[in-house]
Every structure is written in structure tokens, then in C-alpha cells.
């Protein structure tokens, strides 16, 4: 079980997420916990630094954003870690959030589905328990 405190007064829960790519490169980025997001989202240049080529991705998704409809590539990141729990071959969407979102990416269902998640806004705690299938 992994547990972390957060400030319930803040509008979003932000977590430090570790991304490990096929190039042996590690990037640690701040992501917003987004239980409404189907995928986890990372920026293009982070994906490229990790050794991936988003422009050559075979799988794509349609994103409806504030600026219109975009087609975004889906990659499988070698390893993704959150609060010390690591998951292999995680599907992520490559898309840059607006700079004013102030997080690098979104932590969505493609990661969260591996956990039992307990969010206590009264105590300001988040617990992740690895699930078994």
C-alpha cells in the first residue's frame, strides 16, 4: 500500500510520476490525478526523450480539446511508477497540456485501473493498493 497526503484545499491532486522508457532514460514529472481520463497523458517531448517516436505510433485516439479535435498517438511506456508502485507497458497518450495547467501530464485510468484508490478529502490522504486480477 502506498499513501500520501495532499492539501484538500487545492483544486487537483498532484503526484510525482516516474516514467522509464526504452532508451534507458528516466523522467519524473508532476501529473494531475484524473479519474475521468481514459488514458494517462504525457507531452510529446517527454515521450521522445524516453526513446519513443509518437509520430510513428500505430494506435491513435481522438481528443476533444478547447482548441478543437485532435488525433493523438498512443504509446506503451516501458515502466511507470507512482508512489513506489511500478507498472509495465502502460498505454499513454502523447499530448501537450496548456502551459497554464502547470502539470506535465494527467494520471488516468490506464494506470489507475491497477489500483484500489481511496481518496479521503476530509483527512487529505490518498491511498493506492495494488490490485490482483
Amino acid at each position, binding site marked *: 500500500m502506498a499513501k500520501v497526503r495532499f492539501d484538500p484545499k487545492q483544486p487537483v491532486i498532484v503526484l510525482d510520476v516516474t516514467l522509464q522508457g526504452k532508451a534507458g532514460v528516466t523522467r*519524473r514529472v508532476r501529473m494531475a490525478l484524473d479519474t475521468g*481520463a481514459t488514458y494517462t497523458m504525457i507531452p510529446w517531448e517527454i515521450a521522445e526523450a524516453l526513446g519513443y517516436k509518437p509520430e510513428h505510433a500505430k494506435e491513435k485516439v481522438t481528443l476533444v480539446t478547447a482548441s478543437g479535435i485532435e488525433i493523438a498517438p*498512443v504509446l506503451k511506456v516501458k515502466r511507470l511508477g507512482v508512489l513506489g508502485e511500478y507498472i509495465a507497458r502502460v498505454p499513454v497518450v502523447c499530448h501537450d497540456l496548456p502551459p497554464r495547467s502547470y502539470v506535465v501530464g494527467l494520471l488516468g485510468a490506464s494506470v489507475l485501473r491497477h489500483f484500489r484508490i481511496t481518496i479521503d478529502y476530509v483527512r487529505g490522504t490518498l491511498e493506492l493498493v495494488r490490485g490482483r486480477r
Partner: protein
Amino acid sequence: MKIKELRRRYPDEWLLIRITAVDRQDQPVEGGLVAHSKNRDEIYHEQMKRREDLYITYTGKMPEKGYAVAFHGKSSI
């Protein structure tokens, strides 16, 4: 240097930090500053050139006063 200290020294900026120590939950706790900028894309470009263990973070308040946060997307394959 502690990550907390780097955040304090560079308010309202994007930081690129080379990680030298993590805690039991593999969260970054210490590192060396590689770059800092108010422009996020400069940090994204800088990290592209490097292969070490790097941490990217914004040190300002999120969101700015007067803004709310809503992440909206619709996906289909």
C-alpha cells in the same frame, strides 16, 4: 540540494532537476538544478538533450487566481 529548497529559491518557474536522492516511495527529494525558466517549453527542449534521471516541476501555485481546472477529453480508437 533538497527539492523543497529549490522550489523556494525559484518561485513561479519551471525547474529541470537532476535527481540525486529519492525517498522510500521513490519520490525525488534531492537534486541538482539543470535549468529553470518561466517558459515551460524551454525546459521541455532542454530535457530532450539529456539522458540522466531528470525531474520536471512547476513551483508556482496551481491554478492562478481567477482560474479553475477542468480536464476534458473524449477518446475513441
